[in-house]
C-alpha cells in the first residue's frame, strides 16, 4: 500500500510530549511508522504548518433517534443554512445545528477530526444508531448506550449486586455494539415516566427506591469491575438550573475513593460531561452567576476526574438530551416546539430548539462559564473541548471555541456584542482572565486528552509509530502566529491536510477522498451468569415490546467494526 511522509511541520503530540518540534511523520499501510521504514514515499510539505494527530471528540450527539428527531422536526434548520454540494464530495450536505449524516462526516474531516463518540444511544434504538453510522462518512464512530435509568441497572444496584450488573452491562454492550457507560440524569429520566424528576442526588427514584448517588457509585464500581476502556460518562442531575454547582460538586465527590482499573491507560473513574451546564450559582435567572471557579478548583485537585466544556457558541441550535424532564422544563421557558421520546425500561429523551442570543444575559453568562472551564483548567489532558453538539452549539464551532481559548482579543471582540456586558462581567470572572492557551494545550484538549480518557490512546490521538495514520495539518505557523484571531479560526475550520488511515482525505480544506469509516465497540467477556440471563428473559417476555432475539443488533447491521476486547474471566 501507499507510503507518505509529512515533512518539516511543527509537530504537537502530547501523548509523546512533543511540543512543536520540527519533525517528519512517516506513514505506511495506514499506520504511522519510523521514517526509516519508507522506501519511496509521496511527500507532503508541511513547512511552516502545525501537525497534530486527527481530532478525537469525546462527546457529541451525531447519530441516533433524538438527533434524527431534531433533523426531522426542524426544516427551518436547513433553510438558507445549507451549503451547496461540494463537487468533490459524494453526497449533499444539509442542515446547520443538526447536520445530515453526510455533512457531519465531511465537516468533522474538514476540521481534522477522525473519531467521534456518540454521547447517548438508547439501547432499544441501536439498529437506528448503526444505520446512521453507516451513512456518516470518513470518521470513526463509537456510541455509548445509556444506563442511568435502565430498569436492570436500577434493580441490580439497589440490591448492591455489582457482579450481576456487570454481567448485564457486558451483555448490553454486546447487544447494542456499544462503547461505554453513559449516564444521563441518573434516576431523573425514569421518574419522568411519571412526569417527575429527581430534585438532587439523594432524591430516590419513584418505585425503584434508589438514589441518583447510589446509581452513579454503583456504575463506577461496575465500570472498574469490568475494566472498560472508558470510564463512567456522566451527565449529572439538575442540569441547566441556577445554583446547580452544588449538585455538580456532590456528583464529582461520588468518585472519591475510586481508582481506575484498566489496561487502556485511562486514569479517571468519572468523566463529567458538558460541565458548563452544571456550574451555575444564584437561585433564580435574575441572580444567575458563574460558579466555575468552585467546580474547577475541585476538578483540578482530583486526578481521577475528567471533564469536557459544553461551550455555548451563541447560535440558534437544537437541544437534545436523554434528560427528558429537563427538555420539558426548557420548553416551558422558551415555549418553542417540544419533542419527547420515552423509551421503555431504558431512558427518556427530549428535543427543543434553542436560541443562545448575545442579547440575553443568561446566554452570555453561559458563554463565559464555558470558557472559564477551559481557562481555569490546570491539566488540559483532563479538560476537553466540546459544545455538547448540538446542545450548546454545533460542533462546527470548535474552531471558534479554540480561538476564544487561544486569544483574549477574540474573547473581547465577542463580548463587545453583548447587550448585558456589564452584568455578564459582574456575574463571571471571564474579564479578569488573561490566560491564552497554546497549540500544545489545544492538542491536549482535542485529541491526546480525549483519546486517553476514552482508553483508545494506543490507536487514536497521537503520532507514535504503530498508531493509526490519522494526521491533521493546519496552516498555522507556531513561530509566527497570526495577529488576527480570525485567521486561527479559519485554519482550524479547514485543515490544510487530513490523512485518515493513511489516505489523503482532505486537501486545502476540501474533502477529496472518502475512506471507509469504522464502528468502534467494546466486547467484554464475563463468566456465564444464569440469574442475569433469566432476568433478561423475563423482562423481554413481559415488559419489552420487542422480542429478545430481535433486540440484539444483527451482525449484518454492524458496519466495518473495530472491536476492543476486554476479558474479565482471567
Amino acid at each position, binding site marked *: 500500500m501507499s507510503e507518505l511522509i509529512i515533512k518539516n511541520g511543527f509537530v504537537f503530540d502530547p501523548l509523546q510530549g512533543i511540543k512543536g518540534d520540527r519533525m517528519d511523520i512517516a506513514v505506511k499501510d495506514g499506520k504511522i511508522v519510523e521514517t526509516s521504514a519508507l522506501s519511496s514515499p509521496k511527500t507532503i510539505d508541511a513547512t511552516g504548518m502545525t501537525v497534530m494527530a486527527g481530532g478525537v471528540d469525546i462527546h457529541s450527539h451525531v447519530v441516533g433517534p433524538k438527533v434524527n*428527531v431534531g433533523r426531522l422536526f426542524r426544516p427551518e434548520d436547513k433553510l438558507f443554512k445549507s451549503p451547496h454540494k461540494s463537487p468533490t464530495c459524494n453526497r449533499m450536505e*444539509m442542515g446547520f445545528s443538526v447536520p445530515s449524516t453526510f455533512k457531519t462526516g465531511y465537516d468533522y474531516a474538514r476540521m481534522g477530526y477522525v473519531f467521534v463518540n456518540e454521547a447517548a444511544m438508547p439501547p*432499544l434504538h441501536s439498529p437506528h444508531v448503526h*444505520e446512521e453510522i453507516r451513512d456518516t462518512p470518513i470518521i470513526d464512530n463509537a456510541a455509548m448506550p445509556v444506563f442511568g435509568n435502565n430498569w436492570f441497572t436500577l434493580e441490580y444496584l439497589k440490591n448492591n449486586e455489582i457482579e450481576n450488573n456487570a454481567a448485564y452491562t457486558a451483555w448490553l454492550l454486546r447487544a447494542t455494539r456499544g462503547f461505554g457507560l453513559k449516564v444521563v440524569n441518573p434516576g431523573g429520566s425514569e421518574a*419522568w415516566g411519571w412526569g417527575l424528576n429527581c430534585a438532587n442526588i439523594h432524591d430516590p427514584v419513584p418505585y425503584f427506591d434508589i438514589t441518583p448517588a447510589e446509581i452513579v457509585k454503583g456504575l463506577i464500581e461496575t465500570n472498574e469491575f469490568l475494566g472498560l476502556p472508558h470510564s463512567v460518562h456522566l451527565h449529572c442531575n439538575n442540569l441547566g438550573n441556577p445554583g446547580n454547582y452544588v449538585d455538580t460538586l456532590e456528583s464529582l465527590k461520588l468518585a472519591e475513593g475510586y481508582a481506575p482499573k484498566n489496561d487502556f491507560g485511562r486514569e479517571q473513574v468519572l468523566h463529567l460531561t458538558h460541565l458548563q451546564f452544571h456550574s451555575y450559582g444564584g437561585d433564580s435567572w435574575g441572580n444567575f452567576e458563574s460558579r466555575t471557579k468552585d467546580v474547577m478548583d475541585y476538578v483540578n485537585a482530583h486526578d481521577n476526574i475528567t471533564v469536557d466544556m459544553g461551550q455555548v457558541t451563541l447560535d440558534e441550535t437544537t437541544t437534545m438530551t436523554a434528560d427528558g424532564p429537563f427538555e420539558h422544563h426548557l420548553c416551558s421557558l422558551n415555549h418553542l*416546539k417540544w419533542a419527547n421520546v420515552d423509551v421503555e425500561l431504558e431512558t427518556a429523551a427530549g428535543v427543543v430548539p434553542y436560541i443562545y442570543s448575545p442579547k440575553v444575559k443568561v446566554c452570555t453568562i453561559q458563554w463565559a462559564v464555558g470558557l472559564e472551564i477551559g481557562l481555569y483548567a490546570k491539566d488540559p489532558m483532563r479538560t476537553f473541548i466540546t459544545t455538547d453538539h448540538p446542545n450548546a452549539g454545533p460542533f462546527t464551532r470548535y474552531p471558534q471555541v479554540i480561538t476564544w481559548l487561544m486569544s483574549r482579543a477574540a474573547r473581547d471582540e465577542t463580548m463587545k456584542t453583548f447587550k448585558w456586558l456589564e452584568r455578564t462581567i459582574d456575574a463571571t470572572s471571564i474579564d479578569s482572565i488573561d490566560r491564552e492557551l497554546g497549540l500544545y494545550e489545544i492538542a491536549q484538549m482535542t485529541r491526546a486528552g480525549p483519546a486517553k480518557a476514552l482508553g483508545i490512546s494506543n490507536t487514536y490521538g497521537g503520532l507514535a509509530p504503530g498508531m493509526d495514520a490519522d494526521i491533521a495539518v493546519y496552516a498555522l505557523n507556531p513561530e509566527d502566529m497570526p495577529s488576527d484571531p480570525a485567521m486561527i479560526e479559519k485554519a482550524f475550520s479547514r485543515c490544510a491536510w487530513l490523512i485518515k488511515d493513511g489516505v489523503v482525505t482532505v486537501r486545502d480544506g476540501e474533502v477529496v477522498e472518502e475512506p471507509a469509516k469504522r464502528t468502534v465497540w467494546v466486547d467484554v467477556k464475563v463468566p456465564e451468569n444464569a440469574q442475569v440471563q433469566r432476568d433478561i428473559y423475563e423482562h423481554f417476555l413481559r415488559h419489552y415490546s420487542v422480542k429478545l432475539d430481535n433486540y440484539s443488533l444483527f451482525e449484518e447491521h454492524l458496519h466495518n467494526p473495530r472491536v476492543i476486547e476486554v476479558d474479565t474471566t482471567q
Partner: protein
Amino acid sequence: MPKKIENVGCPYCGVCCDDLVVTVSDDGKQILEVENACAIGNQIFHHATGSERVKLPRLRQPDGTYKDISYDEAVDYAAKVLYNAKKPLIYGFGSTNCEGMAAAAKVAETAGAVLDNCASICHGSSFLAIFDNGYPSCTLGETKNRADVIVYWGANPAHAHPRHMSRYSIFPRGFFTGKGHKSRKIVVIDPRHTDTAQVADIHLQVKQGHDYELFDAFRAVVRGHEIPEEVAGIKRERILEVVEIMKKARFGTIFYGMGLCHSDGRNHNVDIAISLTRDLNDYTKWTIMAMRGHYNITGPGAVWSWQYGFPYCLDLTKKDIAHMNPGETSSVDLAMRDEVDAFINIGTDAGAHFPIEAVKHLRKHPWITIDPNICMASEISDLHIPVGIVGVEVPGIVYRMDNVPIQYRKVIDPPEGVISDEELFERIHKRLSELEAEEAAKGPAKAAPEGVRAEE
C-alpha cells in the same frame, strides 16, 4: 421436516408485530403455517408462495401487452428514463426496508429527482403539525407498562391495526399495569360507532369534521375555563368527565389516525392534539402517537431525515441542495400540475391511491412500477420490475409507528432470479453513473474544484 422460524416480523401494518412463527416446508420453498399474525399479516405470507408470482421484469410493448425482459435490460431502461427526465418523481416506500430507501435516495440525488413517500397522502399533515409544535411521544412499551388511560382519536385499530390494542394499549399487562384491561380507562373519539368504540369505556361521538372544536374545548377545560353547553355534538358534562379522567391519569397516550389527518382541519387537528398533550403534561404524564399505516412508512421519514433533513416531499432536482415544500413538492400536487415527466412507483400503489387526474397526468410519461405483486400501478406501467417481499424473502430494518427500529428476517428465498429493492436501486445507480460519465466524457470537462469553498 418442516422448519419453524420464530421472532419473525410482519410486513403489514405499523404495529410491526415481531412475534410471528412461520413454518416453512422441508425444501424451504413453501410457507405452510403462520402463527400469531392477524388475518391480513397471515395472508401476506401465504400469498408469497401460494400464488403465481411475476419473476421477470415486464416491458410494455407497442401493442399494449407486456413482454418479459431481463433485469439488466430493466435496469438500463430505468436508468435511461431517469437520465433523460427533467423532473422524475420517485414515490412510495411504505412497504420496503430502510436499506432500499437509502439506495433509492442515492438514485434520486444522482438523477435529480423528487423523492416522496406515502406520508404525502397520509400522515403528511402530522409532519406539518410536528414541524410547528413538536411531538411529545414515547415507545409503545412505555404505554404498555405505564398507561392507565388510552385515547383513540379518529383511529380504528380494530380494523386498521388489528393487534395494536392487544400488544400495546388496551389489553396487555405491563410492569406497572399488572391488571391489564381492568386497570385502564379507554376513551374513543370518533364520529362512527366503530369496532374500536365497542371496547371503549367512553365513546364520544364527535360531529364529523368538528374535532378541532372538541380539542379546543378540552384545552379550555384543562386550563380551567368555561365551555358552552355543547361542543361538536358532545355535552359539556361528558367533556368535563373525560378531561377529569385525563388529568387524573398516571400516564396516558393519545393515539390518533386519519380521522384527524384527513378531516376538516387536517394538520391543525394534529397541532391542537399536540397542544393538548403539552397542556396535560403540566399536570401528569401524557404522550401522543400517530397511528402510522404501513409497517415501514415511518422508515423513509427516518432515513431521509438523516440523509437530507426532511422526512418527505424532497425536491432533489437541483442535485446539490435539497428542498421541501409540501404543496409545491408533494407528489399529488406535482402530478396534478403535470410537472413530472417520469414516475417510479415503489412499494405502494399510486394507481389505486392517487386521484384519477393525477394518475392521468403521470400516465402520459414513462411510469415504472417496482413491486413484488401485480397491483393497479403495475397494470398501467410501462415497466414493472418485480422484487422480493421484505419481511418474507428479504431481511432488513423497518421502523415501527413509534420510531423503534425492528430488524426483520427472511423466512424463504425470493423466486429464483428475483432481486431486492436495495440491489435493484444500487444497480440503477451504477448504470445512471455510467450514463453521466459517458456524457461528461463527451462534453466539456466539468469545472475543477477550486480549493477552499468561499468563506462559508
